[in-house]
């Protein structure tokens, strides 16, 4: 059986080098603008850095994918089309796209450039995936984090392309690419601006022993001294509803599906994806290294040790998320 492909995040050239050196098979990254879904301050690649990144990766036999996975703004498609053109020009191994119109553009203008379907396209079943495969020649789909392993296995039997699943990192509880919660509080959304709960709208304040986080005009969390601090994402906030008071949507936990790697292989998955382009090179290195070991263990038929990466994760707690059905 083929060894599972390890797809690793890089928010900066330094993180790219760290990921390559730590054993990534494939790197994914984005340009420094709103064409990708990690449009954070100080992050991402200039054109020169991307070109150099492709060179560095290829020299090490590592593939590089360019995420262009936000939805082009009406009246300004040029920026997104230029991103696709430049990724092709630099020799990227694939582009990761979400928008129908942009997929059509890429398929038309760069038929030789591999197209992956971003998780932002939220293709959650075999029929939706086959629509993209047949219409736009998509070669791989990144599956939404709402599916169980059984469902993934069923999908793989029915589709005409590869699948990539998230194994580690931040966990969206909502269907990705279909969430306007952030825009409701800040006017900026993952789909339009490439950022959820953007830092420009976040304020942390120490109130007595509490750490209070506000997003736009709304208080979204309040944690006591000694409790882990959360990302200021809306869906991980604390609210009240009826009698209930707490994490209405999701506890601040992170995904860690290391122990499911063998099951993913059996389910016909091609690639494992690590989330975290917004994280430091230190995170990239530690997580990639750990998953490299796990993938090798799986390929050799050895048991996979649970990760010791909790200290790196939000909430400092990990979950197998929707891969286990109890999550729903």
């Amino acid at each position, binding site marked *: 059986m083929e060894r599972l492909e390890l797809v690793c995040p890089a928010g900066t050239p330094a993180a790219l080098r760290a990921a390559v050196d730590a054993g990534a098979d494939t790197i994914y990254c984005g340009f420094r603008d709103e064409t990708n879904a990690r449009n954070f301050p100080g992050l991402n690649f200039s054109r020169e850095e991307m070109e150099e990144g492709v060179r560095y990766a290829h020299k090490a036999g590592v593939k590089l994918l360019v995420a262009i996975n936000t939805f082009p703004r009406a009246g300004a498609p040029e920026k997104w089309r230029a991103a696709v053109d430049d990724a092709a020009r630099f020799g990227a191994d694939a582009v990761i796209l979400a928008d129908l119109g942009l997929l059509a553009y890429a398929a038309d203008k760069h038929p030789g450039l591999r197209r992956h379907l971003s998780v932002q396209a939220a293709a959650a079943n075999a029929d939706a995936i086959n629509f993209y495969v047949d219409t736009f020649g998509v070669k791989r789909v990144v599956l939404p984090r709402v599916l169980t392993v059984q469902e993934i296995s069923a999908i793989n039997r029915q589709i005409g392309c590869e699948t990539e699943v998230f194994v580690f990192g931040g966990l969206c509880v909502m269907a990705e690419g279909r969430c306007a919660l952030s825009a*409701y509080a800040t006017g900026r959304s993952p789909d339009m601006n490439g950022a959820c709960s953007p830092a420009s709208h976040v304020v942390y304040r120490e109130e007595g022993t509490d750490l209070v986080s506000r997003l736009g005009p709304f208080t979204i969390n309040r944690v006591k001294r000694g409790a882990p601090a959360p990302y200021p994402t809306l869906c991980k906030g604390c*609210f009240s509803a009826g009698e209930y008071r707490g994490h209405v949507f999701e506890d601040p936990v992170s995904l860690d599906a290391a122990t499911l790697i063998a099951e993913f292989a059996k389910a016909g998955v091609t690639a494992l994806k690590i989330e975290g382009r917004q994280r430091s090179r230190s995170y990239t290195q530690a997580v990639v290294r750990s998953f490299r070991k796990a993938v090798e263990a799986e390929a050799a038929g050895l048991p996979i040790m649970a990760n010791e990466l909790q200290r790196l994760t939000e909430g400092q707690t990990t979950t197998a998320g929707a891969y286990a059905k109890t999550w729903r």
Partner: protein
Amino acid sequence: MPARPSLTLGPLLFNWPADKWSDFYARIADEAEVDRVVLGEVVCSKRSPFCEDRIGAAVERLQKAGKEVLLASLVLVTLPRERKAMKELAEGAELPVEINDFTMLRYLEPGAPFAAGPLVNVYNEGTLAWLAGRGAKLVCLPPELPIASVTALAKAGGAAGIDTEVWAFGRVPLAISGRCYHARIHGLSKDSCQFVCGEDLDGLRVATLDGEDFLAVNGVQTMSFTHASVLGELDALKAAGVTSFRLSPHDCDMVAVAGLFRERLEEKLDAEEAVTRLGMLLPEARFSNGFLFGDYGAEMVERAQRQVA
């Protein structure tokens, strides 16, 4: 631009008892001044059986009253039975379908007419043109779009000869999940949810820890706490090229709500007066138009301020 902008009554997003459902659509058929009605369950396939056997009668009554009827698809399609139901909806129906997930494009014959609902991602001219080429006759734009994008898309819609619609009234669907928050809040699992979402006819209020109204939970869907309303901005939207306006059903006098929008569209009623009357119809509601005109979705930008800005 068509002389007469149309009004669409979107699909009911909440879980109402079957009799209430039937009574609601009977009254809409007989009294509401809407041009188009979208029927069917969008949010959760577990709710589908409740009103399924009522749809036929509602369609008949609505059509008899001269209203165009479309059938809505599910927003999130994962289970085999959901795929089967959606395939049947596309292939078996004599009525056009409103797609709320691109899965439907796998089942619809290329060229067959359909509408794109507000829950599929149409953010730019490229996507809109592609859908129009595929058979879309109406596109209801994602509610998070700002007026600049709406203007550009309405222009593209006009060029493609299709209707461009905006979310005009009602709580805004903001997110969809595999997980049911109504069940979670009640300490239940999704599989044994006891249909607790049926207790909240307009959704369950979610407040911040400071007690401020924030969101509304509707089963697996998360909505705005505020009711979006563009009643005061219809002139600007018409001028932008928008040809259709969507009203989302709530547990209020929707016939009266539709009446206000119709009178405003026909300029028989002053904007100020219309807004005041809408407030009287929904005394508990807080309104917003921030996605279109403000800095963020929950905001309400008054007409005067907008004109100054």
